[in-house]
């Protein structure tokens, strides 16, 4: 097992598109790390550059204590699961799992024994003679995982590991993957565009935008304290409220209402400056009674989220959302008050988080 380190990694495609712009990243040994971002942000390019399928224009990739920047993918001691799993359609499951061992010239009996052992661990015993075309999506994924496990590589790279599964299976696979990674303890980097997937599985994650890393942190850090408005709006199943605000000594004026300065920004704001006030709908409590430091407006939309509701208030032409537990949802058109949690509210100056 090995740590992965990127130093000033840059990738410029012919034609001048800068896919990766001088990235620095440290992934400690054994960590389950997510690369998250919208499509085209460079996360897959980054993964492929770590794998060696793309050559870096500048900077270095270090795996363990070896600089592998100029080394062929096959010599980097890594294994990769592709988005479409890339199982060879003309080989049965055993041969697919044993393929990396075949390349390493392991004797046939030995590699079949190993393939059987890894296959059994992932519950593939009864499928070993099948071709990939005869397997379900979930089974194909497990074969692809078995194949990388058979390599006993220093690090695993997964490209969108769950995107080819249907929604139901995806949740199961998520739990399964996380458990497997924990048991194997192999440094694993995966790419996803689904923030829920990254939050659920990763030990730590990097949020990327246009070739830059916008934030690195644990899922809790990234969710609770997004470092900038891009991360704030990208993370979370309901988007964060990002409202223009003006500082008025110890309060903020937001859409004509007065709310207290966020705890994290206390003493850091200048009177009269314009900032963006951010608070997640989950961190708003809704009430029908007038309350101090609340945003008040008319209920315009109520969306059912299952065990809770997402209520949208129109506060002086600005839309503000709050999550309301089931049974307490308001009627359309009534006046409501959303009280932000002061310890969870955030202030952004020029798009960056204001904090000590």
């Amino acid at each position, binding site marked *: 097992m090995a740590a992965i380190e990127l130093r000033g990694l840059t990738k410029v495609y012919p034609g001048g598109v800068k896919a990766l712009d001088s990235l620095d990243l440290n992934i400690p040994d054994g960590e389950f790390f997510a690369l998250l971002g919208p499509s085209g942000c460079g996360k897959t390019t980054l993964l492929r550059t770590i794998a060696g399928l793309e050559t870096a224009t500048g900077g270095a990739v270090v795996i363990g204590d070896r600089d592998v920047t100029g080394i062929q993918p096959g010599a980097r001691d890594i294994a990769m699961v592709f988005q479409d799993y890339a199982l060879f359609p003309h080989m049965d499951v055993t041969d697919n799992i044993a393929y990396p061992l075949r*390349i390493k010239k392991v004797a046939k009996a030995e590699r079949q024994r190993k393939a059987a052992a890894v296959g059994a661990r992932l519950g593939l015993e009864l499928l070993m003679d099948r071709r990939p075309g005869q397997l379900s999506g979930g089974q194909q994924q497990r074969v692809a995982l078995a194949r990388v496990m058979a390599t006993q590589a220093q690090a695993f790279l997964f490209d969108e590991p769950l995107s080819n599964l249907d929604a139901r299976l995806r949740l199961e696979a998520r739990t399964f993957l996380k458990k497997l990674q924990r048991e194997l303890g192999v440094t694993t980097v995966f790419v996803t565009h689904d923030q829920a997937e990254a939050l659920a599985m990763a030990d730590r994650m990097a949020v990327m935008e246009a070739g830059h890393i916008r934030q690195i942190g644990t899922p809790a850090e990234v969710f609770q304290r997004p470092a900038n408005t891009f991360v704030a709006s990208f993370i979370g199943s309901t988007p964060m409220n990002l409202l223009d605000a003006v500082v008025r000594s110890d309060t903020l004026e937001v859409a004509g209402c007065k709310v207290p300065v966020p705890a994290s920004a206390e003493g850091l704001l200048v009177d009269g400056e314009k900032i963006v006030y951010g608070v997640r709908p989950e961190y708003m409590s809704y009430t029908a009674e007038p309350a101090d430091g609340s945003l008040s407006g008319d209920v315009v939309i109520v969306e059912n989220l299952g065990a809770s509701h997402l209520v949208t208030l129109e506060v002086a032409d600005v839309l503000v959302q709050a999550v309301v537990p089931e049974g307490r949802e308001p009627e359309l058109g009534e006046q409501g008050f959303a009280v932000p949690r002061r310890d969870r509210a955030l202030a952004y100056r020029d798009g960056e988080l204001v904090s000590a």
Partner: protein
Amino acid sequence: MTRFVAGRIGFYTLIAVLLAFFTIPLLWLATAPFTSDPTYEVRVPDFTFENFQMIIDHPYALWSLVNSLVLSIGTALLVVVLSALAAYALSRVRLPGRDALLYALLLLSSIITGTAAMVPLFQLAIELNLIDSHTGLILILSGGLLPAAIFMIKDFMDSTPKSYEESARVFGASPLQIVAHVVVPLVRPGLATIAVWTVANVWGNFLMPYLLLSDVEKQPAAVIMYTLYTEGGQANLKVLSTFGLLYSIPVVLMYLFVSKKYGFRFHGGIKR
């Protein structure tokens, strides 16, 4: 209703006539070799084998079939190997003007057919000392067939996902291992199709061997058949029909074998 029935009867009658048109020559080919005095009619044979004896006694007939096999299998091997490598490279490497090049080659190779290229090819063969040599003929025939073969195989190569090769690459496979373990198995139906198409082409090619092989012992069946005349200059139907039958059997067997083993496909796409 009656109109419908009449229509059906008319349709099937037409089909039957069309079928008869194609069946009769084949029936003739199947019966005439076993008839002691064949004419152009299809007749119930009297099951004689003396015609076959005549072929066996013929100084060049059987050898010419061996020559045909050597030429067609040699060309097929060369065309399959070269077109697979060329198509793989063309499919994977982005070259400016790649498609234009392919279309130009295809177009030129179909415009400049045997007859048009006859004289220059003959001169080229003389200059290169490749007259009267199977190797020379195989090279020239391969050259003519390669553009179309590359074009067909490239389609198969294009439709194999890149991730298969990248996956093998990350596991440490060398480029030749990737081709052998991953690419060739995936395009095998295409390679089989190309091989059969090449064999059939060479097997039936008259002009090139006639032009480039003057030694009778080296000539293939298609050329020898042209010499099977009686002393009076009449087509010798006894020998001709028998030889024709022997000439067609290998090709039919090959079609059956390949079709059973791989199935013919003229386009790419992976059966998972």
